[in-house]
């Protein structure tokens, strides 16, 4: 029996947009709930993306996304410190071959300057190869964008949400929106029904990614349609993390920004994505063709890349709206429904700026139903779980002396300690995937081969459940089918 809950604002979706918005709103004295159907966040596009903070030259001047991308870039730099998010200020290059590409680069340069992007310049082959010796010699020119950066996208979502929760926001995972509650004349929002009960609220914000057109439809808004676009990626071993120093793009084609080669925030190498339009909003599987396309595209840019460098692959769905721009609006009717939809690239980059814009929009349009009184207890900073691996030995020793669980290594490949895993569980991780997202245990080159059984045991212990109830990523994804001798008892029972 689920109890009714009462809030001022319900945000549907705990991706980068939902969590950035939750944090922004938590600076005001509002009762805020974020609901997400996944078992661990980030899920969806916020989980499987290129982790890039774009400089902002890619978007048509005058569009909402152009303005918000450049502002978002600036905001991440300001927030990375206080929110303890790993940000690699590595810059980016768009690489071109020949005069046709040079013309495209010049267009991007002009576009970027109009969007207010600092430091853009076009450089020649010599300068590019001096900075990036492993790029194919075919490249003749490149657009250099020094404000392009790489972020740990998992940390970003967790950081915003963590800070939001510290400041009073409630997060409800495995909670799926089933319908909107509206007033009798359907002119006002009164709440949201979910699989876990009713959330009464005058404001519902739609930040639900690939489902955002369906959610808008619940409010009677059929003005846009989301098409899922699949992107497949490889992650390559950390031993190759310095193959490139910055985020590298091939020249854009009609289908998008093209296959990229970039270091991740942890200095793996990330290559991808593809851009495959598809029907299903759920199917985020990889395909042989997609992976081959990624590998070919990456090798065209950096010939020394080979499939044997891979430690894993993944795929994610981006939400592309059939409008040319982000869909950020407050509906006239029902009053209280806000769309933050179609947040495709540069969505992740724009998210902190999107959050501010939505708050401004809400103050402008919704102050008759909710009041914006500053939250005097708002704390703008938070710390992530200590990143044990990157700490100097003296720091490691200090942590271990204070808590012996910091001297108990669980994940050998990424040097993750038991203390970190226990803290992740305390902060809400309930699955092996969530533990990996928080701590990187299992994200290394052996992909959980060594630490897997240990992580399962710790989750079982901390959650007070038998090991065979621990799941990989929630739902029915149990890792173990039962105890080793159970079969003989089942057999005897027949």
């Amino acid at each position, binding site marked *: 029996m689920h109890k009714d809950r009462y809030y001022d604002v319900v945000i549907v979706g705990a991706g980068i947009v939902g969590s950035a918005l939750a944090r922004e709103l938590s600076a005001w004295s509002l009762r805020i709930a974020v609901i997400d159907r996944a078992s661990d966040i980030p899920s969806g596009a916020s989980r499987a993306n290129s982790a890039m903070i774009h400089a902002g030259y890619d978007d048509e001047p005058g569009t909402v996304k152009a303005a918000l991308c450049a502002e978002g870039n600036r905001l991440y730099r300001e927030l990375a410190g206080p929110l303890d998010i790993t940000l690699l200020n590595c810059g980016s290059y768009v690489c071109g071959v020949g005069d046709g590409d040079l013309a495209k680069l010049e267009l991007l340069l002009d576009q970027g300057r109009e969007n207010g992007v600092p430091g853009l310049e076009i450089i020649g082959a010599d300068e590019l190869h001096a900075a990036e010796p492993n790029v194919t010699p075919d490249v003749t020119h490149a657009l250099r964008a020094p404000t392009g950066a790489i972020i740990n996208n998992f940390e970003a979502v967790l950081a915003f949400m963590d800070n939001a929760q510290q400041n009073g926001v409630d997060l409800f995972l495995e909670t799926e929106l089933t319908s909107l509650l509206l007033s009798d004349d359907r002119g006002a929002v009164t709440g949201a029904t979910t699989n876990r009960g009713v959330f009464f609220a005058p404001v519902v914000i739609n930040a639900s990614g690939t489902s955002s057109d369906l959610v808008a439809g619940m409010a009677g808004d059929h003005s846009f349609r989301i098409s899922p676009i699949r992107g497949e990626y490889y992650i390559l071993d950390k031993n190759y993390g310095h193959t490139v120093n910055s985020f590298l793009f091939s020249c854009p084609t009609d289908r998008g920004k093209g296959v990229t080669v970039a270091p991740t925030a942890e200095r793996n190498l990330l290559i991808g994505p593809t851009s495959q339009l598809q029907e299903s909003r759920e199917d985020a599987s990889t395909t042989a063709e997609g992976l081959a396309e990624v590998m070919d595209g990456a090798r065209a840019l950096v010939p020394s890349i080979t499939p044997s460098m891979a430690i894993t692959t993944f795929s994610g769905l981006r939400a592309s709206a059939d409008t040319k721009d982000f869909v950020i609006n407050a509906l006239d009717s029902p009053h209280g429904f806000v769309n933050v939809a179609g947040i495709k690239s540069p969505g992740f980059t724009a998210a902190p700026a999107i959050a501010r814009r939505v708050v401004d929009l809400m103050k402008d349009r919704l102050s008759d139903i909710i009041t914006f009184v500053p939250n005097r207890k708002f704390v703008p900073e938070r710390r992530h779980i200590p990143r044990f691996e990157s700490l100097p030995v003296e720091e490691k020793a200090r942590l271990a002396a204070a808590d012996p669980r910091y001297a108990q290594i669980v994940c050998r490949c990424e040097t993750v300690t038991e203390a970190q895993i226990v803290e992740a569980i305390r902060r809400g991780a309930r699955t092996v995937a969530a533990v990996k997202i928080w701590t990187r245990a299992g994200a290394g080159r052996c992909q959980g081969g060594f630490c897997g059984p240990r992580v399962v045991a710790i989750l079982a*212990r901390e959650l007070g459940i038998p090991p065979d109830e621990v799941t990989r990523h929630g739902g029915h994804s149990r890792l173990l089918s039962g*105890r*080793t*001798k159970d*079969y*003989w*008892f089942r*057999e*005897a029972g027949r």
Partner: protein
Amino acid sequence: MICVNCPVGCDIKVTAEGDEVKSVEGNACPRALEFARDEVRNPTRIFATTVRVSGGRLPVCPVRSLRAAPKSRLFDISREVARLVVPAPVRIGQMILEDACGIGVDIVATRDLEAQEEDVK
């Protein structure tokens, strides 16, 4: 079948009438004959599994049949071992199940397994 007398592992073709080996082909040496005879008449295997343990540092302890057991009875032996719960500590060589299934197969522990310490590991 594969003759496992030595690592060569010849693929041998054995023709048998009931319990009796009539011919063996494909072998590189005569030892295959004796192997084939045993395999036809009374194939045996050393059997290794685990047994449940209570109060130990691990919930299961590896065990083995002391000598090769009849291949046709391995599942029966498994079933009988599965019913047991042995209290820790366990010592290597400790008799876990004497005369399993009444066919003279002894099952012994193959490692020392200490009792769980008082505090949670």
